Every structure is written in C-alpha cells, then in structure tokens.
C-alpha cells in the first residue's frame, strides 16, 4: 500500500529527519536550537526523545568550528545533518564549507568523501531585517563540489532531505521559512533521485515562469489568476541549483517562446542570471522577446514593516510582467486586484503570530 498523506513542508522535513535517523544509525542531527523547546520551528520536534541526546543535539555557538567538526565526523563514518536557523549564520562557516567540504573529495582524488547535510533557512517578514533574512543561494551555488537544493513542495522537501542524507557529498539544503506552513501531498514511495533537475509544477503554452523556492509559490498564484483570463503559464520549479536544469526550461520555452524568471534574492546576487546566461548561450533565438527577471532590490531589507513591505515582489509583479510580455496590458488592473491579499506582507499565513 502506498504511503501518501497531506502534510506541511515543515512536517515533511521533520518526517524525513525522523526516517533518516531510523534508517542510518550513523546519522546525527545537530544545530543551535535543534533540541530546544521550539525545535527549529518544530522541524526537529520529538526527535531527541526518540533517538537520544547523543544523536540529536545542540551545539556551541561555533559555526565554523562545528562545520569542520561535522566534516571530520563525516570522514570518520558519521552522517551529520547540521542546522542553521538562518542562512546568515552559515556565513561564519564559509571557510569550512568552501575550503574543505566542497573540495575534499576532489583534492584527495576521490579517496575520501564528506556525507554532510547543511540545512539553512532563508526567509522574510516580521522585521527580520538585514542580517536575518538574506538569500545567499547563488553564492553557495557557485562553489564547485557543493550540492545546493531549494525544494519548494512538501513532497520534494521530504525526498530531497532523505536523498541529501543518503548522498555522500556535502549538500546545502535551503528552506524558505514561508514554505514551512504550506501543505502538500507527500508520497513516501518515490524512488531516490540524484538531487538534480527542475520540475514542471503547472503546464502551459503561453509563457514560461521559471522560479526559485518561495517565488515558485508566487508564480503558481499568478498562473492561477492568469488562467482565468485564458492565459496558460507554465511554471518550472528550479529546485536544484547544481547544476541548473537549463534543459527543462529550454523545453518549456520551446512551447511558449517567452521566459520570465523569478528569484527570492537581490537582482545583483540572483542565480537567475546564471540560468539566463546559460540559456542565452545555448538557446539564443528561441525566445520571441528578451526574458525578464523578477527579483529583490539591490540593497538589504530594512526592518520596519512600513518600508519592508515594499521590498518584496510577488505574484502581482510576476503577473504584471507576464501580461506586458504577452501584450495584454489592459488586463493588468483586474489580475492584480484578484491577486491582492488582505494579509499583511510580513506574515507568511493567517495563523502566524510573531516573532519567528
């Protein structure tokens, strides 16, 4: 019998960690706050009770040292999953991630490997401000030897986490905090994949919306409203960054001839530029007009909601740009009105009460 159920993205991660700890006796789960009462937004809840304090543990505030210690533990036969509640904290460990984890297998001629998962959470909202809500996926994706994934759906969150634990390479697992509450169907029977490839989440013939992480949710929202006006947008979830799956995007452009890319990162630091330049080199001429990029402004996000709420583009901006590309500007006001939400822009969902 298939094991299929509808759970949230956050619950899917917790289930994957639970199943990983059960399946791999050498796996450990470590990070600042992992066993504390809030359990990394409940994604590690109950795991210490189930697997013991030797395998599910907190750590000193030594991000670089602990990353190196997890690399060494991996060399010694363990399978660590290291958690950072904010990707900003992982910046303290860039030396160990870039100089050691990413290069170890290569520089020792394939004789040694580093089975390590680093969970990092990106996000926005409730005034997290300049140092608690950065989106640094492109920076890490530009380091050869790392695997970088940012799953969007609950099903991918579950399977990518288990795949990352099983993988013998360092994997940076990037979660957008605003995905945690979103429900999805998780089918546990899916076979293991190699943490590569994009996924078409909605098919369409008029325009390709290639999006990263939480921006995929925004693209899906835009696509749903566009469909009410007879516009069929294809939504491609760019869930794996190393390498970027340009083939899937090119295949979609082959149908639509139009490309809009949406990323949850400042424009100057967006991995979307890699996608666009790769497509320009390999599929120049397939696009009927220049592609567009929806991304954040090129400055940090301020804390105050009165200005931060104007920082983030979303479904409205995606839809507006798509309508321009399709030469359907007259529909803009109607579509945007439909997409407007009465939910404050610094809240991920109605049930949320701050702080994060």
């Amino acid at each position, binding site marked *: 019998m298939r094991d299929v159920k509808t759970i949230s993205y956050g619950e899917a991660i917790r289930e994957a960690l639970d199943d990983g700890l059960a399946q791999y006796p050498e796996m450990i789960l470590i990070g600042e706050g992992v066993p504390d009462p809030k359990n990394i937004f409940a994604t590690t809840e109950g795991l210490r009770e189930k697997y013991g304090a030797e395998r599910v543990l907190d*750590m000193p505030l030594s991000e670089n040292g*602990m990353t190196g210690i997890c690399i060494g533990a991996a060399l010694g036969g363990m399978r660590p999953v290291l958690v950072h509640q904010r990707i900003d904290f992982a910046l303290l460990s860039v030396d160990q991630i870039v*100089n050691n984890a990413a290069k170890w*297998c290569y520089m020792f001629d*394939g*004789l040694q490997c580093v089975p390590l998962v680093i969970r990092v959470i990106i996000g926005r909202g409730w005034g997290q401000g300049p140092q608690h809500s950065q989106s640094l996926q492109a920076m890490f994706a530009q380091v050869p030897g790392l695997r970088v994934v940012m799953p969007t759906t609950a099903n991918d969150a579950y399977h990518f986490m288990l795949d990352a634990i099983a993988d013998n390479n360092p994997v940076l697992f990037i979660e957008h905090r605003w995905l945690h509450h979103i429900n999805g169907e998780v089918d546990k029977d899916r076979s293991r994949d190699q943490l590569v490839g994009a996924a078409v989440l909605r098919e369409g013939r008029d325009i390709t919306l290639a999006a990263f992480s939480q921006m995929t949710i925004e693209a899906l929202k835009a696509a749903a409203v566009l469909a009410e006006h007879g516009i069929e947008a294809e939504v491609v979830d760019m869930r794996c960054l190393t390498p970027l799956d340009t083939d899937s995007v090119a295949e979609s452009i082959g149908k639509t001839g139009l490309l809009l890319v949406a990323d949850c990162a400042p424009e100057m630091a967006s991995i979307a530029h890699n996608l666009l330049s790769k497509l320009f080199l390999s599929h120049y001429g397939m696009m009927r007009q220049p592609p567009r990029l929806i991304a954040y402004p090129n400055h940090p996000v301020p804390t105050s909601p009165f200005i931060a709420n104007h920082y983030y583009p979303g479904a409205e901006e995606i839809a507006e740009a798509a309508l321009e590309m399709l030469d359907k500007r007259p529909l803009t006001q109607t579509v945007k009105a439909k997409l407007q939400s009465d939910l404050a822009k610094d809240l991920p969902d109605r049930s949320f009460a701050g702080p994060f």
Partner: protein
Amino acid sequence: MVQTTADLKQLYYQMLRIRRIEEAIAKRYREQQMRCPTHLCIGEEAIAVGVNAHLSVQDKIFSNHRGHGHYLAKGGDLRRLLAELYGFAEGCCGGRGGSMHLTDLAAGFIASTPIVGGTVPLAAGYAWAERNKKFDTAQGFNVVAVFFGDGCFEEGVLHETMNFAALKKLPLLFVCENNQYSVMTRLSERQPDREIYKIAAAHGLQAASGDGNRVDEVFTLAETAIANARAGHGPQFLELHTHRWPEHCGPNEDDELGYRPPGELAVWKQRCPLLRTRQALLDGGLINDAELEAMENSLAEEIEQAFQWALQCSRPVVSSMELHLYA
C-alpha cells in the same frame, strides 16, 4: 619515558630519515620539477617522531602545510609523497594536492591542508566519531592527533574546537609546534607575552609544554598525553618549542633576510634534535660510528630508490581533471 636503547636508536633513525628526505627534496627542488609550494620541516623533526611513536595504524593524524615529517613519521608512503611533489598520477593525491595536501589512509594519515586551522576541527570531528564507537576497555579509544603551529593558535576555529573537544571529552591530542614564526612574523608581534598551553588548559584541556627539540622529552610528554586520551580522559594539548631552519616555503635558508635576530638560527642549530640524540647515544656507548654509517647508507639507498620510482611515474591523463568533483 624512553626505556631502551633500541627505542632511542629508533627515534634517532626516524628523525634522521625525515632530515635526509627533506634535504634530498630541497636539493632536487632546485631542478624546478617539483612545481608546488613546499614547506620543509628541517629542525622540527623531533615532534613528529616523538608523538607518532605512540600511535598505531588505527590512530589517525591530521596535519598542515608543513606536513612531510608528520606523514613520514606516521608511516606514509615515501614514494607516493615524492610522486605527489612531481605532480604524477601515482602521487598520494594523484597529483591534485602537491606538498600541502597529503593523505595515506592505510597509514592513518588522513590529511594535511594549507588553510591555517583548517584541519583542526576535522581532527576533532574524527575523534568524535571514534568517541561514539563502543569503548574497548582493553584497547581504549583510537586517538586522533592534529599538528599545527603557533600561528594557528591565533585562529578562532582552534578555540572553537578546543571548547567542543573538552565538552565531549574527545580522544584528541592537539600538538602545537611553536617555532615562533608565522611565515616571517615573530610571535611577539602577534601574541601577548603569555604561554600558549595555559590558554589550552583554561579551555579545560590537560596541557603541558616542553622542549620540542629533545625527542626523549617529546616522547615522554606524548606518551602520557596519548595514554590519557586513549583512556577517555578527554583532549590533551602539548606546546612544543622548536625552530624551523629553512625559509618558510622553499628549499633554501633565508637568514640573510634579517627577520630573525642575529645569531638566533645558530643557537637553534646547536639545539638540533638529531645532534643531541646522536651525542646522547654516543656518550652512553649505545651506538658506534659503524652503526651510524650503516644508518646513513641505508637511508641514502632508500631515498635514491624512492626518487627513481617517483621519477618514472606517469603524468595524470588530462581528461581525469574533471573526475571526483562529487563522490
């Protein structure tokens, strides 16, 4: 303590072997065929030898950019070290690492890398994995040792690692080779006037210091420290004072640059770890000139044969360059 004549002779032989290999590398380095940064450990041999004398193949070590001595004392394959320096496929890293990236898993030499402090937490992580294994009451824990310099003591990651190692009582030995210089910058320009090992003690480690140019002293300090780590008493720290004779990187001496006070190098050469041990052996009537000559001859032959082997190795295939990005 060094109990027997055979032990002391063996320590001397191991130090002499490292010295002669480093000298041979320096001589051949000038031929411009070993095209990688190479940091020789001439003058510092006693530390590598005195510590590794207590480690078995099951025990592991991590090292740094100046790692030839540690690699050789742990039993690393000489021929594959030399092939690595020449960039050949048979090198211990297939030519991908050079002098600063060595490995010999069969010998328990996990790795050396040249980012200062880079391998220190890795050694702790490895020791953590060992600590998590079932404790063997007869054998104790396998021990992990990591070698680093006085410059590394300034890296934050070292202190992060000492904190965690003490917290988890890891079977880990920190070996600080204090040669007083980070490249050409003197310790007094970098650290206040206090002793390094006392900071380690404040982190909760069992710590001691000693003369790193006396192999019997290193041997005795390491014996206690490693026994403690093996028995589960937690991480150990040794600060061993020594001096590097050659330039920071390369085959030559560089005293003419003037970054050392006049006469300092000469004083340290009088404290040569080999000279002292040979004198002790001769004074005690424990060795004779014929045995010393036999040692030299046997080493000269081993080194020559190793170079001959390395020099006939093959260049890595260009297409292999893209392999092993991922496991």
